[in-house]
């Protein structure tokens, strides 16, 4: 693979190879509040960088930041999107670091790790260590066990065998004491609550096997289960670690929500100086400056300034509104065009954004009650296993075998029924499915999301930004002369207004009118080649208003005919194909829109959706989702706006788009990386195939138990048979999980 291929690849993956600067929220522009001074005497800043996906991205970001004077080390973690930067305090400007990354074309925000997350990172490493120790012990004990099994017909002297058993015990006991901790702790905690989870039979089997084996070793007995006990831990730990890695993806969601809250605001002090403070420190009565591109951190009132404000959070509509002094402003609104001074009227905890976060969290808690397939299997499995072990113990006593023999049999039953295969069956399949979906452009944030997706029967779709591209597109470009387009672009590049952006994006990079000035709510004016040119609303540009088309712009150069630019929020190319595909899979499709009736009906008709609701507030959307869930439907919600976030969290499973607002990406279980909707179908197909595969694996595990359990109960299981049976079932399950999915294509 050459560097050229990397370039192509990075374009496929949607990396911002063009390197155009992106907007920075306020927190990113003034990240000083998040700089930590570490013990080693260096200042340290963690940033969350989004949009990086390949080698070119890593190298660009690290090189760019390292080139800043004073920066000692910058390291980018592609898996977590975290960029860590160190510098000698005072030698580098933290604002310059974020600006550098934003100028490279990546979204950047300060990253404030919570305690909980640091704890989970530690837990992941601990599981990995336990796995390593168990693996090491299992392999080394097996060397002794195989020798003992090979010498069973008298080739090995008794003293050698006892010596080998002692060596095994020496490795197994400390290894199990260390590597068994995750299971012992969880079993103990669950027993104290008076319940029995999967870890109870596991712990019991391991402890019983070790105890029996130690007794056998001390009395010079023939059979020990050291190898089986430790191997059991090893296989189970593999499953646990895979599961932890899957859940690690969910942390990304929590992190993005956190990064939304980790915003800074520019507080205006009474002496006129401006300080960057953390948003959570703002109290009612504070005066805050909102620069273009800033998101309002709290609810408040505008005291000074006039600007276009993106109200998507409240109305779900992408068209901005004009806000002026005296108007209320709500947390989460984005200032687009001009500086605003606002007076805070609430704290962040009492603001809309916090309310939204709470709704999202509430939804996620409710979703947390979903019981995974593996756990459902375990609930049925645990009592059966315990009863079986107890029955065989009693049975052998009744037959007159003696306590010693009966305990050995019971231990064998517990070991052979221990749910290695069950513990591996689900995580192994999910890891494979998540990996495949990642390659197809779907980021899955939670392993059990795939299980939930496989069960859905209803799909709810948002309109703006989901079925449509969510941004205006110039529709009459063909009728406008290249010259007029170039003139308009020169003005449009100076503005953040969505319509201006549409013109500027179409024209590509180029010059900007020198003295371009934006009048919020009206348009942009500037001098090009000595001529005053205006681009904006009809009445402002000086055109007799001809029709009621709100989403039009007029270009008016002195002494020429005015030119009309018409915009439309275009449907995504594959929206209809996706809806047809959903229907072909037997799902009922419904559209929820915050938009007015006419455009909602038009979009639904174009996409082929029969059932629609329009004019909905965020709360209406939640109500609709909850009503369906209450009826026992399994709902998939696909949405993108900040106002969709609570509904996304309330649905059984949810998807968002890469272009979506941070909060809805955070609330969704899956994020579609590209512009296309077809991956939704792929995700459903893969999740269904994955569910089938998990059930298949449970089937294998059950078959294995049906053969092995009678052997164990009737006392035919020697340590060798236990070892072979256990490892072969685990290997079969893992291989079956890794086998490629076969997906039948339906459109």
């Amino acid at each position, binding site marked *: 693979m050459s560097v050229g291929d990397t370039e192509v690849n990075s374009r496929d993956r949607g990396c911002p190879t063009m390197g155009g600067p992106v907007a920075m929220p306020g927190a990113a522009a003034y990240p000083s509040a998040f700089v930590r001074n570490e013990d080693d005497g260096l200042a340290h800043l963690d940033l969350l960088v989004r949009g990086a996906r390949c080698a070119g991205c890593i190298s660009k970001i690290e090189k760019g930041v390292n080139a800043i004077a004073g920066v000692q080390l910058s390291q980018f973690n592609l898996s977590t999107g975290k960029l860590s930067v160190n510098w000698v305090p005072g030698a580098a400007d933290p604002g310059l670091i974020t600006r550098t990354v934003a100028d490279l074309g990546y979204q950047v925000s300060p990253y404030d790790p919570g305690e909980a997350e640091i704890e989970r990172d530690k837990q992941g490493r601990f599981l990995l260590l336990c796995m390593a120790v168990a693996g090491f012990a299992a392999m*080394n004990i097996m060397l002794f066990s195989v020798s003992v099994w090979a010498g069973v017909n008298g080739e090995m002297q008794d003293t050698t065998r006892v010596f080998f058993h002692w060596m095994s015990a020496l*490795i197994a006991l400390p290894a199990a004491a260390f590597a068994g901790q995750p299971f012992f702790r969880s079993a103990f905690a669950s027993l104290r609550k008076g319940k029995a989870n999967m870890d109870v039979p596991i712990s019991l089997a391991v402890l019983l096997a070790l105890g029996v084996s130690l007794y056998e070793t001390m009395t010079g007995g023939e059979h020990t289960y050291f190898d089986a006990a430790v191997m059991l831990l090893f296989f189970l730990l593999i499953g646990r670690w895979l599961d932890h890695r899957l859940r690690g993806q969910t942390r990304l969601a929590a992190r993005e929500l956190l990064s939304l809250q980790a915003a800074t605001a520019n507080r205006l002090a009474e002496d006129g100086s401006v300080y960057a403070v953390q948003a959570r420190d703002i109290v009612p009565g504070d005066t805050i400056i909102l620069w273009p591109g800033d998101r309002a951190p709290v609810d408040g009132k505008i005291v000074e300034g006039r600007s276009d404000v993106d109200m998507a959070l409240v109305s779900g509509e992408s068209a901005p509104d004009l806000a002026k002094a005296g108007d209320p402003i709500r947390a989460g609104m984005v200032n687009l065009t001009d500086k605003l001074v606002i007076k805070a009227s609430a704290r962040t905890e009492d603001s809309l954004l916090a309310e939204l976060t709470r709704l999202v969290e509430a939804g996620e808690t409710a979703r947390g009650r979903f019981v995974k397939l593996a756990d459902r299997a375990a609930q049925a499995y645990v009592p059966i296993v315990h009863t079986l072990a107890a029955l065989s113990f009693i049975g052998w006593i009744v037959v007159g075998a003696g306590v010693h023999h009966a305990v050995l049999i019971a231990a064998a039953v517990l070991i052979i029924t221990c749910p290695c295969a069950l513990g591996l069956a689900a995580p192994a399949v999910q890891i494979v499915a998540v990996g495949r979906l990642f390659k197809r452009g779907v980021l899955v944030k939670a392993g059990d999301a795939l299980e939930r997706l496989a069960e859905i029967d209803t799909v709810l779709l948002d309109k703006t930004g989901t079925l449509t591209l969510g941004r205006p597109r110039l529709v009459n470009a063909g009728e406008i002369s290249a010259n007029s387009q170039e003139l308009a672009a020169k003005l449009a590049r100076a503005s953040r207004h969505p319509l201006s952006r549409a013109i500027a994006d179409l024209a590509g990079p180029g010059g900007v009118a020198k003295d371009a000035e934006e009048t919020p709510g009206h348009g942009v004016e500037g001098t090009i080649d000595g001529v005053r040119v205006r681009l904006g609303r009809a009445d402002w540009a000086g055109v007799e208003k001809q029709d009621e088309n709100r989403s039009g712009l007029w270009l008016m150069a002195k002494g020429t005919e005015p030119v009309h630019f018409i915009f439309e929020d275009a449907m995504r190319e594959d929206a209809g194909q996706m809806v047809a595909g959903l229907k072909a899979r037997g799902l009922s499709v419904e559209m929820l829109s915050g938009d007015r009736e006419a455009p909602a009906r038009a979009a639904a008709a174009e996409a082929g959706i029969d059932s629609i609701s329009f004019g909905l507030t965020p709360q209406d959307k939640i109500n609709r989702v909850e009503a369906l869930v209450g009826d026992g439907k399994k709902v998939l919600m696909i949405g993108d706006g900040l106002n969709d976030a609570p509904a996304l969290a309330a649905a059984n499973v949810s998807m968002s788009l890469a272009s979506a607002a941070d909060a809805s990406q955070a609330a969704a279980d899956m994020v579609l990386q590209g512009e296309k909707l077809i991956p939704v179908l792929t995700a459903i197909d893969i999740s269904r195939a994955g569910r089938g595969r998990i059930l298949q694996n449970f089937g294998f595990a059950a078959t294995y138990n049906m053969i092995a359990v009678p052997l164990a109960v009737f006392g035919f299981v020697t340590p060798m048979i236990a070892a072979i049976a256990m490892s072969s079932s685990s290997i079969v399950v893992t291989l079956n999980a890794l086998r490629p999915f076969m997906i039948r294509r339906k459109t």
Partner: protein
Amino acid sequence: MNILVYLIPAALFLALLGLGAFIWTVKSGQYDDMEGAKWRIFMDDNQDDHIPE
């Protein structure tokens, strides 16, 4: 069979070395960025290599 008294501790010591090495890789954070590592090999700049000018 007396040789076992030497061979087994020697074998265990070697295995422990391997385990120690693995524990070191975990502690030094080499599994923290599994995605990034595979891409880094395509980066051309070897800032740490001392290539004569």
